[in-house]
């Protein structure tokens, strides 16, 4: 069975076509990375997949369930970490997790055990009773990750999940994602960190200006762009036609900085 099927998804905001006829699949047990420059349409795609935005046309399905028709069921199956961090600032992680476990109807004992393991692994125990607003950026992100993993979802959807984790936690999270897939789980993540995509993901899809311009394993992308042994970074820049822009930008900056 496939975890995610997105077919001809279109979404525009006024004149701007944010997502333009995107189709992709994420298979079971696979880690799929969505790459693309800022404003490419990654988050918009993910939001439609979560049933948070209505698509103009096309469809998104999670394990065969249509996100637009049955978003609650989709959310039952998915662990989702959105891009922006709007947590309940005046709750503590303890209160937040109690809330989440109650909503999802999780068994108390099992979850307590699991929670202890998470906290230990992420070195988070000492923040468990501090108000979320006082947590650092990275610790907030950990809070969201734990919230998404708590019910052991079969599918993880992560929008920029590693952007402010420290080295240790980023490594642990990457390992968690790997373990998750080894047990048959699937992951869709969007990221700007090329190393993450390169080291972690089975397949990548590159979105630019709302269109899915390339898709495949790293090897496939290399052969398509005729760049033997290239890093994902240089492939990405080539495919999104930004190579020259980068060179120009660096030249201008160099001048500005050496004046």
């Amino acid at each position: 069975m496939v975890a995610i099927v997105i077919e001809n998804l279109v979404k525009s905001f006024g004149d701007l076509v944010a997502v333009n006829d995107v189709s992709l699949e994420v298979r079971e047990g696979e880690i799929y990375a969505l790459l693309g420059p800022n404003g490419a349409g990654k988050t918009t795609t993910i939001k439609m997949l979560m049933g948070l935005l209505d698509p103009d046309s096309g469809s998104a399905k999670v394990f065969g369930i249509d996100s637009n028709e049955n978003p609650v069921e989709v959310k039952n199956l998915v662990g989702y970490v959105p891009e922006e961090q709007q947590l309940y600032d005046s709750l503590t992680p303890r209160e937040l997790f109690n809330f989440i476990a109650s909503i999802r109807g999780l068994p108390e004992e099992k979850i307590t055990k699991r929670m202890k393991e998470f906290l230990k692994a992420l070195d988070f125990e000492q923040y468990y009773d501090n108000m979320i607003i006082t947590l650092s950026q990275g610790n907030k992100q950990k809070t969201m990750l734990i919230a998404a993993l708590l019910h052991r979802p079969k599918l993880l959807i992560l929008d920029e999940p590693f952007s402010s984790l420290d080295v240790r936690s980023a490594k642990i999270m990457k390992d968690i994602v790997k373990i998750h897939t080894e047990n048959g789980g699937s992951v869709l993540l969007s990221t700007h960190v090329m190393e993450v995509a390169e080291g972690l993901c089975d397949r990548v899809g590159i979105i630019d200006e709302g269109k899915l311009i390339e898709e495949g394993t790293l090897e496939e992308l290399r052969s398509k762009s005729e760049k033997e042994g290239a890093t994902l970074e240089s492939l990405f820049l080539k495919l999104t036609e930004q190579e020259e822009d980068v060179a120009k930008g660096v030249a201008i900056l160099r001048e500005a900085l050496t004046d």
Partner: protein
Amino acid sequence: MKRSESWRYAGVVAQEVRFKAFLEANPANLARVKENPDKISKALKSQSRISVIFSTMILIMLSVLTLAASAFDTELGNPDARLAVGFAVYLILSFVVIFFLNLTTTTGLFTSGAMRLPSTLPLTRVELEQLNFMTFVRIFIAPVVLSMVIFPIGCLIIFGPVVAIISFVACASNVSIAIGALIIVSKWFHKKTHQTDESRISSIIRVAASLGIVIGMISVYSIGSYLPDLIRFIIGLSSSMGEGFFTILALIFPFSFGFLAASIAFSSIIPFNTFLASLVGSAFYSLVAIVSYKRSGESLRAITLGGISTSSPGLLKEVVVETTSPLQGMIRKDLKLATRNIASAFIFAIPILLVVILFPMIQFWSDGPMRSLPALVALEYANLFGGITLVSVLMFDTQGASIHEGLPIRSRLILKTKTAIIMVPYALSMIALDIVFLLQPPISPWILLMPLIQIPCGYVIGMSVGATVFKVRGGGRAVAVNVTSDQAVGILAGIVAALAGIVPLVAYGLAMIATGSYIISLGAQGLSLLVMVLIARFQVPKLLKD
């Protein structure tokens, strides 16, 4: 850095602080600021304009009322006592106005961290303190300037220049001390609301503090009608304690200034001792004000540079995850959020607010025993408040969007939660109304049953208002709204609540006109309410979408 320069920079910082505090107050703004920054600055401008107009009106009202009472209301007591006490009452009230009107903003400032901006500039410590204090003053410039200008002008017109000068010094001291107190209390409140030791006591303190603040605000707004009584009460109390009591009073803030002013204006009547006491007191409190000014700058700097430590010390508690039913979990979460935010705590005070507003009204409407009509009007008021309470409860969710988005929560569950929460203040309002009805004895004891029968209407109002807001603002999906920036929703909620809640009241009224029997009328009220409850239970959720 020169003072004038500092003042100018403070203007820039104040602008930024206001902007940040505004965003902080409503995370929904954060999303909008990217899309439409103009709209935000416009909303911000209109908000600060409204609060200026509001402060002006309150301060003018207080000045006029106190001055009129002290100068012309001969019933209240001797002219010297009237001036002294009226003067002091004005100072107390303007203190309260400055204090309460700004408490939420100030607490917000500490959270938003916007005050940290100047500390990144290359300034000395002294300059930084001065800049911080001026920023603070500029943020609250409207009430500060107004309270220092309006009352002295009134004094100048009525009592002459010397009293006006004293009143100016008094008002300036008052402002300085009020701001000092404001900073201390905001700091304390910020700390208390952000500390999370789970003990019952601390949540009780939190709720009590928020309630106290809300009641403080309410009493300021409604004080106008009580003001002469307050002056009369203080004068009466002091007179009954004997002549010497005035001398003691003259030592106490802010009466010292009042007695000093009275001693100048009525030097022939006031005893020398009292004059001396007021002089000593005034000098002392002016000194305190100067110290407070100095300390506030320091304390602000400490806050902006060091932050307020809110982490709870002590042992780590055992990690357990406790679960309840989804509905209960939602309610618990909402109540926790409510007790940690002054603005949200407002919903607890709704019944009190209702009594404060309705009590004088009911007295005014009915001479003799209370009949059905004022009771119906009072109930309709409560319905209106019920709708507004619901929107306030919807505000809680402006916080946790990231968590909400990933959770399998059906829109009807959210609607049920919010409804369940507002049913409590609604029921309490009904009981409070019954007490008001008892104070103005009704013509028939049956009237006392009207509020009690009306209690289930809280459910109807919650469901219908919630569903309407979700339909209008979210196309049927549960949404969070913020009434402070989206007043249209507040008005809509009021209208829907009034319309839904009036049906049983109309039924009562029609039955009363037709039959004149209390029992039949109450039956009509109950029956129509039953039908509405059923509709709310089975039909209204169909409007929602997940």
